[in-house]
């Protein structure tokens, strides 16, 4: 405690206290916010899945997507988006959004349990036919061709998500997210549903086999080692430039200064 006592008058102490308080409040809120859906789940056991989904939808989604899922100025219609879309958006934590906007940010953990997500997906799927949640078999990429997946990735994906899957900027502050943490099912669902700014890559134009190849290539990128050493985020020449002008020049000029200083 001596350490703390000695430093409590430091000007940084106030800042540190503020930070600790903020983190505490945030953590507390997160616990409470996460607890809520779990309580709700207990009540729902006697309803059918679609009924449960509809109730959850009305509670958590309708304020933006409308009572009939017809869409409002705050959010698009969900009629016809299919179960896959609900599964992608909710299980990745993108929905529900804290604030409506063009960029939905993935959050971990998701706000709903798997069972609740399945219920909401069933409800939205019951509104109109749409892409279904991919099966285990659909996303099994074990036998896919990574090299062919690479060709398709560079033709269809890298223009937004970047060749190494690190993500890229879109217009007006939007961005294509990094693919480094995503699950195969998430990738598959994103391709068939076209979430947010992303266009749809339907099964008719990019068949399941090709989707599996793309997923395999993304998986390869996720697990790829860096034979050349420190990867600098795999973001291309910009971080290389930053490294050059900071670390490398610091080292070289440091030695130059050492040469110039007279020995004692």
């Amino acid at each position: 405690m001596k350490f703390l006592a000695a430093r409590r008058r430091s000007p940084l102490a106030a800042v540190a206290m503020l930070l600790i308080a903020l983190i505490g409040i945030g953590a507390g809120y997160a616990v409470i916010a996460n607890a809520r859906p779990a309580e709700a789940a207990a009540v729902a056991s006697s309803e059918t899945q679609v009924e449960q989904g509809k109730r959850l939808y009305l509670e958590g989604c309708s304020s933006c997507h409308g009572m009939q899922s017809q869409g409002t100025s705050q959010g698009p219609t969900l009629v016809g988006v299919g179960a896959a879309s609900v599964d992608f958006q909710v299980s990745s934590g993108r929905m529900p959004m804290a604030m409506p906007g063009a960029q939905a940010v993935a959050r971990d953990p998701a706000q709903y349990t798997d069972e609740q997500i399945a219920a909401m997906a069933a409800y939205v799927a019951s509104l109109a036919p749409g892409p279904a949640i991919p099966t285990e078999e659909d996303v099994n990429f074990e036998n896919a061709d990574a090299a062919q997946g690479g060709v398709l990735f560079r033709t269809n994906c890298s223009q937004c998500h970047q060749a190494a899957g690190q993500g890229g900027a879109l217009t007006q502050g939007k961005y294509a997210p990094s693919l480094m943490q995503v699950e195969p099912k998430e990738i598959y669902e994103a391709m068939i549903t076209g979430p947010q700014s992303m266009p749809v890559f339907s099964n008719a134009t990019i068949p399941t086999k090709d989707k599996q190849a793309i997923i395999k290539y993304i998986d390869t990128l996720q697990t790829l080692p860096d034979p050349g050493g420190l990867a600098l985020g795999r973001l291309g020449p910009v971080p290389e430039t930053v490294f050059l002008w900071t670390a490398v020049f610091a080292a070289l000029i440091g030695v130059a200064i050492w040469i110039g200083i007279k020995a004692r």
Partner: protein
Amino acid sequence: MSDHSSPESHENVPAKLGYSPVADIEHKPRLTDTDPKAARRAERQVATMFVLSILLVIAFVVAYIGIDKSTIVYIPLFGEVGALNFALGLCMGLGVFLIGAGAIQWAKKLMPDTEVVAQRHEMASPEAATEEAEANYQRGKTESGFAQYKIIRRTLIGALALFPIPLVIMLRDLWSTPAGSPSPDAILSKTLWKKGERIVVDGTYVPVKAEDLPVGGLISAVPADLLEVEEAEGNLNARGKAAIIVIRMDPSDIRSQQGDGWDYQGILAFSKICTHVGCPIALYEQRTHHLLCPCHQSTFDLADSGNVVFGPAARRMPQLPIGVDAEGYLVAMSDFAEPIGPSFWERG
């Protein structure tokens, strides 16, 4: 120079081997100058660096022979990296660095650190030399008669002026055009697309039906003939011009098009090559219908004739008129109505 620029003078210091020590510069003897122990310590430091360098070169050879080129190791802070590259770089880098560090340490600690002075001399040549040069020039001028034989002078200048022409003219065949082939602007204005040419998915080369493409969908596509043409030509030129993106939007979202009915039930095809400097673009935001170039951020509104809404591109993205053939596959209705890709002088 003003008087104060040289507060110290060296007039009384005897010259020694072309330079003289600067008496006025404060010179503190180093520890290594006064303490023989310190000097021996410095000697040991330098020698240690050289020895380490030798050992590191040996380690380099061992690593080269001993480590398989595909081995991956986890190094904290660096991640999973290639073991051979890491080891070789570390050994060679440190090994070479230590030679340099040793030499510098040697110079700093053990070689004399008294600064010395050398005098400068004006760059201009002494007058006698200038006069001699001038005299030589005059002699040459007279003896050659360069001033006198006007006609020789003029024809020589003419000959020298024309002499580079053969060297330049021979550059023409850098572009190996067969006789009678079209001009550059004609070539740039034409692509593989023609009436009835099927649109196939880039990468898998399967044709597409209208119903395959949902609203909000995107495909990167090429003409069905492309692979055959590429095989025949042995280059990627045709691809570089014919690449397109095909998108589908709610027909009510389409505000304007480059030609009447160039869409097919909300399906639109646009060139993939940016009109700025030619990067391929497929960064299509299906909500806003904006197409963004990842190179220089030109943004085109595909719901509004592909017009430029932001960035340095001056021209709209050329649209390809499309329809379906008898079997229901998407086809081009003609070639592009304007040249695709970056502008050029003859484009007009």
